[in-house]
């Protein structure tokens, strides 16, 4: 596994959730979540809908706010302080279920907007990197098109490239293939698999159990706001411990 950075912090976990709790009004949506993600590790989070898995990863870059517990990303603790939020967001890339590309901007502008505005990168440098990333996600010739002119699979790959433009330490994927037509799922999963092989740290919420088996170092199963089981893919799929996991796997694998 290639390690791109070797700062002192790289010894410890890059993302750590300790006793994270969250409520929507009275509804206890996250209960005592503990998760430690090492550099280069690939985590797949699965579970039935409403289990809190999306909420959990959205807490990591403060799209949702947790109310108890600690979240630490690459040594930065996430607090209500805007500077800590910005520092964390600079390290974390995110890919959404519904792509969330900017429909009024070309593919190229979607990619360069963040680096040029938020990080002050020169426009032509950003465009060079964007072209390189578009080659990497296998849509090198669509840079001038608008998101609405692309297929769902192409849009999601643009979204992955957009997140990579900020040179993140961690990539979060929130059900990246759930809004895609079946024939487009594999082109997105292929790109994600390549990214994993290149050593990117990834936390993926997904129902793609084949992907989990191939790529994950750790599969986390959540239900009703808590982590029910966390195990290696072999153990998770071969010998699930909890009856809730067994029930879930029965439902998704058949």
């Amino acid at each position, binding site marked *: 596994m290639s390690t791109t950075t070797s700062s002192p912090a790289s010894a410890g976990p890059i993302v750590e959730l300790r006793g994270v709790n969250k409520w929507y009004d009275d509804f206890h949506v996250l209960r005592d979540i503990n998760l430690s993600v090492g550099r280069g590790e690939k985590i797949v989070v699965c579970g039935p809908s409403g289990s809190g898995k999306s909420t959990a990863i959205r807490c990591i870059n403060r799209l949702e706010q947790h109310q108890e517990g600690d979240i630490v990303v690459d040594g930065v603790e996430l607090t209500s302080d805007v500077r800590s939020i910005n520092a964390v967001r600079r390290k974390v890339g995110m890919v959404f279920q*519904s792509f969330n590309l*900017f429909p*009024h901007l070309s593919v190229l502008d979607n990619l360069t907007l963040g680096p040029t*505005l938020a990080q002050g990168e020169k426009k032509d440098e950003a465009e060079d990197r964007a072209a390189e990333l578009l080659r990497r996600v296998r849509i090198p010739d669509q840079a001038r098109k*608008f998101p*609405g002119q692309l297929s769902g699979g192409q849009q999601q790959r643009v979204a992955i490239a957009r997140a990579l433009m900020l040179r993140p330490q961690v990539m979060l994927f929130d059900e990246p293939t759930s809004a895609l037509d079946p024939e487009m799922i594999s082109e997105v999963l292929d790109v994600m698999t390549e990214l994993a092989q290149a050593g990117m740290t990834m936390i993926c919420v997904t129902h793609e159990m084949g992907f989990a088996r191939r790529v994950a170092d750790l599969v986390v199963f959540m239900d009703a706001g808590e982590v029910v089981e966390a195990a290696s893919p072999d153990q998770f799929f071969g010998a699930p411990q909890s009856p809730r996991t067994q029930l879930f796997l029965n439902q998704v694998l058949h």
Partner: protein
Amino acid sequence: MATTVSHAKASSVPRRPPPVGVRNSRAWLVRNLFGSVGNTLLTAGALWLLFVTLPGLVRWAVLDAVWYTPDAGVCHAAMGACWAVVPEKYRVMLFGTFPYSEHWRGALVIAIVIALAAVSTIRRFWSYGLFAAWVVAMLVVFTLLLGGVLGLRPIGTHEWGGLPLTLVMFVGTVVGGLPAGVLLALGRRSTMPVIRALCTGFIEIVRGLPLVTVLFMASLMFPLFMPEGISIDKFARAQIAMAAFFAAYAAEVIRGGLQAIPRGQYEAADTIGLGYWQKTTRVVLPQVMRIVLPSMMNEIIRAFKNTTFIGIIGLFDVLRATSTAIQDPVWVRYSIESYLFISALYFVLCFAMSQYGQRVERDLARN
């Protein structure tokens, strides 16, 4: 295998053109105008109305009309319309109280505003830069109208009038009111309670008042509250009132657009590190403006026609200038013709704006 494939092709359902509809005009007439007893009666009634009114109208407006004469007596003798009042009085109608020798400055203002409006219709030029061009143009226009520099004779705003005044008031209303409306709409959605309350309060109060009362307040009451010795020009007071009125309505239109932007757009902007204003100006507002374009065009056209209200507080906009022009006892009986001319002027400008809005909508729909 090859034979199987060709066999399958040959037996597939052949493509064919859609069924031929009834396309000739006679069939259309029969179907749409005389399709039922009711339709036939309506058609007959409409034809009868046209037969009764149209000949008289044509005779008055065209056949018996007097098109040009400096002598009102000629009109008096004629049976038809006296369009001659327009060439006779057009300078007073178009420039109102503006000093006669300086009318060229007013004409230049009209030309600048219409030229820039024409440039604004070209989508290639759309940017925040175009907005800046309007701001610069307004500075040039104000220099031309006010004078006092570059050897131009100073002209007080109390002498402004006619179409230049109408156009300046209109453009000032939109250029000033649109950004204010954007800020009000953003403020009304702010998480900060004081800002939200102030913006909501402003919008609701201004929307709850008729424009006439807003203008009267600006014109009559406002000076009462000002400290002794400080007086704000009547034109400026009217301009602020008009812009504030427009801003309140524009804010609600924009707020509707803001609500149509999915939450995912904000979240995506957050995750790529954009700050509030970067997010707002580069991600949210460009999309909002596309969404609200039809209703915003409606507000803009209404703002143009609302400029006629400033006549009430003693400013000589093009409508008030026209009613002044025909105070001339020699021509006073031809007010209908004058008002028809001014109506045509308003219609041409409003219709152009409406067509422009529709073209932009079609352009945007293509993307």
